[in-house]
């Protein structure tokens, strides 16, 4: 049994986040046309502009919060040999997203937002991912895991409009990632094509409150050299400003932490006023270290487990202060 997960109310709002933006924009367009027909005033125009911006902001905020606790466990069927088959649907889509308040970013996404969905399964499951490229150039899905050459997402590029079916057994258990492996890979990752691939061990980990945190950066001016903003789950400072993460004192917290930051060599996470057990790559059930800072290169990931002894508000952030002050900052609100 998978431990139950506390979700923010907003998390249930939309199943496929991508559909919200076109719908909202469409509604706005209709509103704009009607207003234009009626000779809308300047104030109307300003209000529409603000609304359009706000809808992107709302979407970015909701996606970041939702990504924290939403796991796509696929469509489950039982195979004749008794194993579990999980089917997932992932689309590559080009979409405009917001990465910091007011800052838009023409992203390349899995399922309309950055990061893509967290695909979750159990060790030994048979996994099928139906990947459709709805973008305007070739893309792919390269899974970190053990699989056949044809399923590696490198030499089998998927052209726009085409569908590719990735099929493999989930191994090894641990915290993994998937990302586009179309060249230039640097650009396809910097644009947002990545997500979490979580393989649970057959014997589940202890019950805990679970969170997914994807550390990334956005090169909004596309100079191809550095990031303007650093985020967790795609929206700068979202867990500091919009949604301090509620935590129960003494409840076991488990963070699935991924570093997919492009351009910078390292990213890190530091928790205030508590220490955590580190399970590098999540491939062992024995922690490697008890610390309060973990630092990782691109593609590295780790499971962190901790509890809070005291109530109150506690920061967590990159311990590269520069990243922290460019958007990688959050807080836990610990309550009794």
């Amino acid at each position: 049994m998978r431990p139950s997960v506390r979700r923010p109310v907003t998390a249930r709002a939309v199943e496929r986040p991508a559909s919200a933006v076109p719908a909202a924009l469409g509604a706005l367009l209709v509103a704009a046309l009607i207003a234009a027909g009626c000779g809308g005033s300047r104030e109307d125009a300003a209000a529409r502009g603000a609304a359009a911006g706000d809808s992107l902001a709302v979407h970015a905020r909701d996606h970041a919060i939702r990504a924290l606790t939403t796991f796509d466990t696929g469509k489950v069927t039982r195979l004749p040999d008794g194993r579990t088959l999980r089917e997932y649907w992932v689309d590559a889509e080009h979409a405009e997203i917001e990465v910091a308040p007011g800052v838009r970013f023409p992203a390349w996404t899995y399922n309309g937002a950055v990061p893509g969905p967290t695909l979750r399964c159990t060790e030994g499951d048979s996994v099928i991912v139906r990947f459709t490229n709805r973008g305007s150039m070739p893309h792919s899905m390269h899974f970190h895991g053990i699989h056949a050459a044809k399923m590696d997402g490198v030499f089998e590029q998927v052209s726009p409009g085409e569908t590719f079916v990735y099929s493999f057994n989930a191994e090894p258990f641990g915290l993994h990632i998937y990302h586009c492996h179309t060249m230039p890979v640097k650009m396809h990752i910097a644009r947002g094509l990545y997500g979490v691939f979580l393989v649970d061990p057959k014997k589940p980990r202890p019950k805990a409150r679970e969170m997914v945190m994807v550390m990334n950066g956005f090169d909004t001016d596309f100079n191809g050299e550095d990031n303007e903003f650093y985020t967790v789950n795609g929206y700068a400072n979202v867990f500091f400003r919009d949604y301090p993460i509620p935590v129960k004192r003494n409840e076991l917290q488990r963070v699935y932490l991924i570093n997919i930051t492009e351009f910078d060599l390292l990213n890190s996470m530091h928790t205030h006023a508590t220490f955590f057990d580190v399970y590098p790559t999540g491939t062992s059930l024995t922690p490697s270290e008890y610390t309060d800072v973990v630092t990782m290169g691109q593609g590295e990931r780790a499971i962190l487990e901790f509890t809070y002894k005291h109530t109150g508000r506690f920061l967590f952030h990159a311990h590269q202060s520069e990243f922290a002050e460019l958007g990688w900052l959050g807080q836990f609100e610990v309550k009794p």
Partner: protein
Amino acid sequence: MSTAKGPSAAQVVLAGLLPLVLIGAMTAWFLAGGAERLGLVQPPIEKLAIERVVFRTQEIVLHVRNEGPGPMSVAQVFVNDAIWDFSITPGRELDRLKGATISIPFDWIEAEPYLLTVVSGTGIRHTREVEIATATPVVSVKTLGVFGLLGVYVGVIPVLLGLLWLPFLRSIPRVWLDFWLSFTMGLLVFLGIDTVSESLEILERVPEFLNGLMLIALGTLGAFFGLVGLGRVLSAKGADGNRAAAGSAASGMGLALLIAIGIGLHNLGEGLAIGAAYTLGEVALGSFLIVGFTLHNTTEGLAILSPLIERKTSVRDLVLLGIVGGAPTILGTWTGAFTYSDPLSLLFLGLGAGAIFQVVWVLARGRATKGEPVVEALARPLNVAGLLAGFLVMYATSLLVAG
């Protein structure tokens, strides 16, 4: 008369208006989306100018302007590459050429460098570097006094001191007169080039759409031909009133006044530069720099004197000339310190350069005897020596104002 066969007044008006109407129609069509229909529209390149940075107690204020071809928005502000809170008036959305004021609460530190970045809605960074942060002066009796005094030291006193050379100039042999007038030309040529060079430095900061180079040209040509015209009016008046003064206005008090006006405009520009540089934290106005400017500008007094050597001049007139030449410096330091505007400075510096070159032109013509080409007159040994000596003196004193 051939008017009967010529076009009627209405026809003339129509002929004049027709091109305008057609241009208007074409403009309207393009603005109404014609350019898009032709497929000429490309994604606009954003440009945001951070025109002015003001440092107040625990606050940094940025004056920004959208100088790109389309509308844009201000999304985030970084101070030294860290996201910072800010407020913006009148609003984040900036139409083409619209400006806004961004206020950043920040505990800045005196004399430290700052990197100020405005991130637009499309994620583009627009950056301005401040080399040394200093509190931007606000208008008060004290600061007016300080910057006024600065202008007096740098502009008024040196010019007046230079005028004290009059008895000396009168006592030296007449043969040397040519030398001194050419010497003055040398001084002025240096000042003219210096003025242009100052304006070119400012040009880099002026938004492209304002076409700063043409502002300099407008000032230069305007002052040059304006003063040529003024000179004619002055000499014509002399001819009407006093025969003895006819034709000599451009060589006596009239010329001295023209030189003083030109130098005054130059000093206005110099004052602007000093006030602004101080405000922008680009120079530390140490006593050495002030001494440098003082010595440098003393030679300007000398330049004003040259047309007065052979005529009686009252002390009142001398003081007047000194003030015309020197006092604009005060105006400059005030303007530069409190309401610095790069485009306006360009115009003023252009005027200064034009005025100075006009005086050089008058002096050069004065070197020639009747019928002698100006260039040949200037090539006489005494004139060449004077010109070079004047230039070198300016160059030497300018070394005191390095930077």
